[in-house]
């Protein structure tokens, strides 16, 4: 953390290794202020806010709920709970389509608003410094906040880890390096003081010695707003180069501290906690106003929208409803991308709700998202290696992934690839490198799983062989005339159990089984003749 010894507020600009500078596309959505979102006809609230934390619904279909009411329970005290974004009736609790990287079916609570928007009372706190740390933390836990930067890890769990680790530095990540997203920019431009307040609260909770907010050099409006808010705060501001992917966790840590995290280690092991600006804002609001997190700032942009904007979108708002608010030019609208243009995924269905991680929706025209050109052979130009922020060799990884060369993929650090797509972006041969890498990572995971399974089979086979050997030996022992005169029990190996006897028994058993088999066939034939394709199902019923 040598560079942090004398951080220069807003003056020094820190860079990352590699990186690209795609044309920024934020001006359109930054033209207007953050807009409040009108009530949608239906809210779909996923119960899988983060995979590892299962939530159980605490309400039933038909229940009336008020705004801010908690709708779930969980055995985990740090789970990020779901709260009602507005008042209304629970329509159903069922599996709905949600966008979790790809569209998947997940259990959701469906809420039909009544339009009254009656809220539960919250207890605001004028000065958070008067509250004990445990109370601050409890308020953050109760707000049900997930990381809004990407993965959606529950903030309470992250803070819990930071408390037990020795957290030295808190970095607030406002480096929105994706060319289309402007949610954090808009947030800082209009509510910089609230974000910094949130940062101070989180800093108090995780007991970090310092707190740095990192912005990108070209976020001018946000920088000036932050700078004026800094006057009343202990937070320091730091600018990084306008490069993609400067906002990636490890890259930003390198830019801020000058320290490269070792492969496979977590930032907290180095005493660093990173939170997204939106998450920090939500934490601040949770403490100051006492209200749970029911909305986030979502950028709606793309050339297919008449008026791109940032909306304070309630969690669970249908994506189509959000897009309609900005006026979709139906003729030009070719695709909708969830997330940024570089890291996002194309939505196959618009019937998904927005969540706490929905930072951006791009209604793209064919000009925004041109058809990718056919993949050509790698010409070994090395551009990809120049831009890789992890300093990998994408051209080599590409060749290895093609050839399923798992050992080399490991050696060349495929698992370190952050799938940022910078290599993809510059490749003159239009090779979809990231897709190769994702497939390669999948193969590595599969291989590990298979290997572990094979290992267990191998062990069992060896033990089996050993058992056979042992049995053979003990049988030989028994055959010896002088040993074990008559004390041996009547077993199949002793002469008392005669061969005919055994054969008779087996024949009888075979006959019984045949009879049962016959009975079953008869039963099957007697029942629905068409369903005889699956005999064992009906066999179990009797």
């Amino acid at each position, binding site marked *: 953390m040598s560079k942090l010894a004398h951080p220069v507020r807003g003056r020094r600009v820190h860079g990352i290794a590699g990186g690209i500078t795609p044309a920024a596309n934020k001006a359109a959505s930054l033209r207007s202020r953050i807009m409040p979102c009108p009530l949608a006809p239906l809210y779909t609230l996923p119960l899988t806010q983060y995979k590892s934390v299962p939530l159980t619904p605490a309400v039933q279909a038909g229940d009336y709920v008020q705004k801010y009411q908690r709708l779930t329970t969980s055995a985990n005290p740090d789970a990020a709970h779901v709260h009602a974004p507005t008042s209304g009736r629970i329509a159903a609790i069922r599996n709905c389509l949600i966008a979790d990287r790809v569209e*998947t079916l997940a259990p959701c609570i469906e809420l039909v608003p009544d339009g009254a928007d009656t809220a539960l009372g919250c207890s605001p706190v004028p000065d958070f410094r008067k509250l004990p740390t445990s109370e601050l933390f409890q308020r953050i836990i109760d707000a049900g906040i997930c990381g809004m930067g990407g993965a959606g890890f529950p903030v309470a769990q992250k803070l819990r880890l930071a408390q037990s680790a020795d957290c030295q530095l808190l970095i607030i990540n406002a480096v929105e390096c994706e060319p289309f997203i402007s949610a954090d920019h808009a947030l800082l431009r209009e509510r910089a003081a609230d974000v910094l307040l949130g940062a101070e609260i989180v800093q108090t909770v995780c007991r970090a010695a310092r707190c740095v907010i990192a912005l990108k050099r070209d976020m001018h409006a946000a920088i000036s707003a932050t700078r004026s808010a800094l006057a009343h705060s202990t937070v320091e501001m730091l600018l990084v180069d306008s490069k993609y992917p400067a906002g990636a966790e490890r890259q930003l840590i390198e830019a801020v501290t000058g320290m490269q995290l070792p492969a496979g280690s977590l930032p907290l092991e180095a005493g660093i906690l990173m939170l997204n600006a939106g998450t920090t804002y939500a934490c601040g609001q949770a403490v100051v106003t006492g209200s749970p997190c029911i909305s986030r700032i979502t950028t709606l942009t793309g050339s297919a929208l008449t008026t791109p904007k940032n909306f304070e979108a309630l969690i669970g708002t249908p994506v189509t409803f959000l897009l309609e608010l900005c006026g979709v030019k139906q003729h030009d609208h070719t695709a909708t991308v969830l997330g940024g243009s570089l890291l996002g*995924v194309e939505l196959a269905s618009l019937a998904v709700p927005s969540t706490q991680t929905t930072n951006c929706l791009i209604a793209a025209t064919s000009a925004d998202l041109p058809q990718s050109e056919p993949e050509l052979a790698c010409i070994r130009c090395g551009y990809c290696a120049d831009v890789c922020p992890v300093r990998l060799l994408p051209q080599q990884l590409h060749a290895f992934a093609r050839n399923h060369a798992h050992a080399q993929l490991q050696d060349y650090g495929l698992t370190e690839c952050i799938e940022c797509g910078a290599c993809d972006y510059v490749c003159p041969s239009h090779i979809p490198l990231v897709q190769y890498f994702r*497939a390669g990572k999948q193969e590595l995971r599969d291989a590990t799983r298979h290997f572990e399974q094979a290992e267990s*089979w191998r062990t069992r086979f060896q033990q089996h062989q050993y058992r056979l050997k042992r049995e053979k030996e003990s049988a030989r022992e028994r055959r010896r005339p002088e040993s074990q005169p008559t004390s041996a029990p009547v077993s199949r190996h002793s002469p008392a159990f005669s061969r005919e006897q055994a054969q008779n028994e087996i024949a009888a*058993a075979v006959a019984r089984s*045949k009879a049962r088999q016959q009975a079953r066939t008869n039963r099957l034939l007697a029942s629905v003749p068409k369903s005889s394709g699956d005999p064992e199902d009906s*066999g179990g019923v009797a």
Partner: protein
Amino acid sequence: MYPLIDTALIRLLLWAFLLLALLGLGVTAMRYWRRKLADQHSLVDRINALLPQTQCGACGFEGCLPYARAIANGQAINQCPPGGDGTIIRLGNLLNELPRTLNPAHGVVVEPRVAFIREDECIGCTKCIRACPVDAILGGPKLMHTVIARECTGCDLCVEPCPVDCIEMRPLGPDHSPRWVLPNSGSGTRTSLEVTR
């Protein structure tokens, strides 16, 4: 005058030298053989680590380890149907051999399966238990038997011995989680997640 070089001394030195040389040769030869044996062992281990451990015997050997020993002694690498092309490629990489297609004399690649015993038909003859190479069947004389699905390698060996034909092989349920696939040349897309379901 004494001769400067005593013939007896020369002879003694010569013998000593010869003995030492022989000893050295012996030690070297011994180390060489041990080394070679160890190499052979580690080669067998490395080959065995690449085999799928289904223990089905389709390769013509009693299990994966015997086949690994045979490969180390020059047996063809394309005799393992459960491993399929992946195993052949990995074996080829290890042994510096060109990958070949699976030898059809040993069978065809089938999707992963597990054995299933129709329990009301089982007569408790214990024949399947004796056939199972990984002890994945639970049961006892004249008692109902069942397969521990998690341990079953899908080797097929228990099906044939059953006198009442109550064991069947069932395919493992398909994995529905989205999977990334290698792009086909010419159809790669930049932003969309390509998944097979």
